């Protein structure tokens, strides 16, 4: 039994067999298999060789036209290695005798060979190590690619363990069988965390070396409430957790019972609770949990789920499906927020050195107008089906917002010419998620119908912390005094301009931060659907006066630690069972 501590990012308890997704970009840890899996694992090695040979043969044929003899030689050499029986035998022997995974055996043997070359004094020979690494990666890609397909066709419940999970990987998850997530990297607002919360399954991230200390099929407990992962728990621990899990479910049921009741404070102030969603089928979940609409409809899934760019009709169908669930309640569609991810980076000749400060989000859209207009066309078409609003992400200055709005008007004219119906008075708002937008909120408010504060990016950019980097993720805090000061400015400027203001970052899903947000003047929160009942419970337990007191106190404090502990105590007093 081994206990690992990380950051709890999505509540709940999962006890399941682990399924490990290694990455060809990182060292493959040594992992044991059961003797009964030996034959299957050896077959995986053979299949990987066969597929790699097929792939290379195709590449070699395709390069026939190129007549580039050096490249052809490289393919030919790699093929000889893949056909080399003694190489394959070395790998299958390692699986057979040491009982390790196919991935580890491939990686270990090829790296051993490569290290032989690196040791050679002759540079011409030592540089050949690169060829061996190339062959290693090609074989691993085959093995891991198969594994990813397996995740899409699961037949039993599993907990997914990985170094980190990308949107492309999580988009393919079979939601009926994935019971929990645990990753080495990541923070509170990493992709893994967001997906886990939207699926309503427990997740723990920033476990550092979990993948090196676990074998596929090991039983794991993922405690998404306390941020603990237990590998191969003993029977007593399993019993304890089963009991704890039942208590937790009972609390959830109790919270579900309040879903029909309004989100009103004890002194009668109505709070609007909206859901953040990623996929159209989550709209139903928002309704079930008692949400009043969609405050953030992320649309990246349309791009990450398929190899090619989505068509206008595909956009439209996804939006129509979601809007039809809500009819006369708001659905805020955020235009595509791509960038700093594999989708855009893999399409570049050279990846950007600093993608988070690069061509992402609205900047990417403004430079890819065809793509942007396709999406706006579909949103406008869907606008007649309900109360659709448009939101532009990552605005950093007024020109960007005006440019985006101008393109929207162009698309409206196109629709006029096509005689297609749309809501001519559709509300257009922006996300405030950069310090520059927060500091100029007063100006931006004149031309925006609403603001939504994206606290995740706002925090990352204000504090200069990569939220996914476990080495610095402890510096990341949305209740840092600097971030709170910016949030306060935005709220005040929105109130002065009399436009709607909501919070859609992770802060709106965190029980201990709700009183502070209400006290700072927020009346609309958009959050992960599974968290709606719990947040509603808090709202129904407080008075705005209490919240105002908390906010006043907090805004005089200078340290993040002081603020965090004060907020935790304040919340514990009103909702003891959550902690």
């Amino acid at each position, binding site marked *: 039994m081994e206990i690992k501590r990380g950051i709890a990012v999505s509540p709940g308890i999962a006890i399941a067999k682990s399924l490990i997704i290694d990455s060809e970009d990182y060292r493959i840890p040594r992992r044991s298999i059961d003797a009964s899996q030996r034959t299957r694992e050896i077959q995986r090695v053979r299949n990987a060789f066969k597929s790699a040979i097929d792939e290379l043969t195709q590449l070699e044929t395709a390069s026939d036209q190129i007549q580039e003899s050096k490249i052809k*030689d*490289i393919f030919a050499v790699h093929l000889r290695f893949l056909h080399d029986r*003694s190489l394959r035998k*070395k790998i299958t022997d390692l699986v057979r005798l040491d009982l390790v995974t196919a991935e580890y055996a491939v990686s270990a043997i090829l790296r051993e*060979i490569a290290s032989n070359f690196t040791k050679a004094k002759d540079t011409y020979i030592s540089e050949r190590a690169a060829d061996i690494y190339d062959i290693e990666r090609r074989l691993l890609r085959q093995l891991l690619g198969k594994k990813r397909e397996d995740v899409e066709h699961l037949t039993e419940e599993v907990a997914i363990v990985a170094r980190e999970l990308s949107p492309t990987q999580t988009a393919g998850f079979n939601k009926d069988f994935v019971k929990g997530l645990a990753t080495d990297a990541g923070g509170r607002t990493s992709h893994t965390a967001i997906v886990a919360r939207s699926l309503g399954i427990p997740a723990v991230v920033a476990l550092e070396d979990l993948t090196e200390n676990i074998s596929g099929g090991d039983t794991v407990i993922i405690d998404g409430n306390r941020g603990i992962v237990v590998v191969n728990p003993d029977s007593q621990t399993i019993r304890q957790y089963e009991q704890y899990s039942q208590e937790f479910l009972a609390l959830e049921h109790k919270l579900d019972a309040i879903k029909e009741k309004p989100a009103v404070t004890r002194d009668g102030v109505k709070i609007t609770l909206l859901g953040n969603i990623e996929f159209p089928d989550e709209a139903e979940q928002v309704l079930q949990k008692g949400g009043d609409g969609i405050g953030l409809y992320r649309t990246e899934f349309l791009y990450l789920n398929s190899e090619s760019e989505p068509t206008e009709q595909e956009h439209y169908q996804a939006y129509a499906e979601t809007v039809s669930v809500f009819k006369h309640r708001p659905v805020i569609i955020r235009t595509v927020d791509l960038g700093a991810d594999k989708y855009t980076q893999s399409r570049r000749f050279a990846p950007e050195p600093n993608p988070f400060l690069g061509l992402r989000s609205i900047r990417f859209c403004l430079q890819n107008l065809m793509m942007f207009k396709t999406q706006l066309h579909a949103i406008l078409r869907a606008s007649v089906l309900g109360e659709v609003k448009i939101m532009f992400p990552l605005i950093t200055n007024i020109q960007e917002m005006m440019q985006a709005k101008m393109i929207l008007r162009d698309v409206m004219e196109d629709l006029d010419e096509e005689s297609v119906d749309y809501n001519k008075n559709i509300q257009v708002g922006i996300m405030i998620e950069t310090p520059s937008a927060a500091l100029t909120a007063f100006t931006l408010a004149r031309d925006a119908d609403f603001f939504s504060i994206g606290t995740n990016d706002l925090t990352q950019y204000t504090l200069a912390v990569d939220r996914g980097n476990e080495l610095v993720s402890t510096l990341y805090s949305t209740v840092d005094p600097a971030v709170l000061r910016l949030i306060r400015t935005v709220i005040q400027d929105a109130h002065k301009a009399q436009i709607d203001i909501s919070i859609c970052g992770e802060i709106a899903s965190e029980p201990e931060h709700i009183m502070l947000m209400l006290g700072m003047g927020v009346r609309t929160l958009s959050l992960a659907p599974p968290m709606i009942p719990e947040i509603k419970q808090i709202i129904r337990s407080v008075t705005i006066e209490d919240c105002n007191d908390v906010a006043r106190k907090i805004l005089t404090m200078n340290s993040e630690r002081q603020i965090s502990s004060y907020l935790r105590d304040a919340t514990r007093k009103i909702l003891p069972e959550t902690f």
Partner: protein
Amino acid sequence: MERTVCEIELEIKNADGLHMRPAMQFVDVANQFDCDITVSNVENDVDGKSIMQMSMLAATCGTKLKVKAEGTDAKQAVDALRELVEEKHFNEPMPNN
């Protein structure tokens, strides 16, 4: 058929040594024959038909390799390999001096 054993010593003469492409040519020639082919430097004996093992000899220019062939076509195999290594020197340039 008679099983013969042939042994010769070959010197790597091309400037860049037995890197990937020459190693590939060597095993391609070796694999045309039925006999077993063992290649050794001072430290190791390896299978002359395996590119992995051959390339791991990391033989540089000037290295002397012992080639031992066992089987019915051992003589032909050794001759073909000598031609490749010492006469054609893998169709690669020789050292400049």
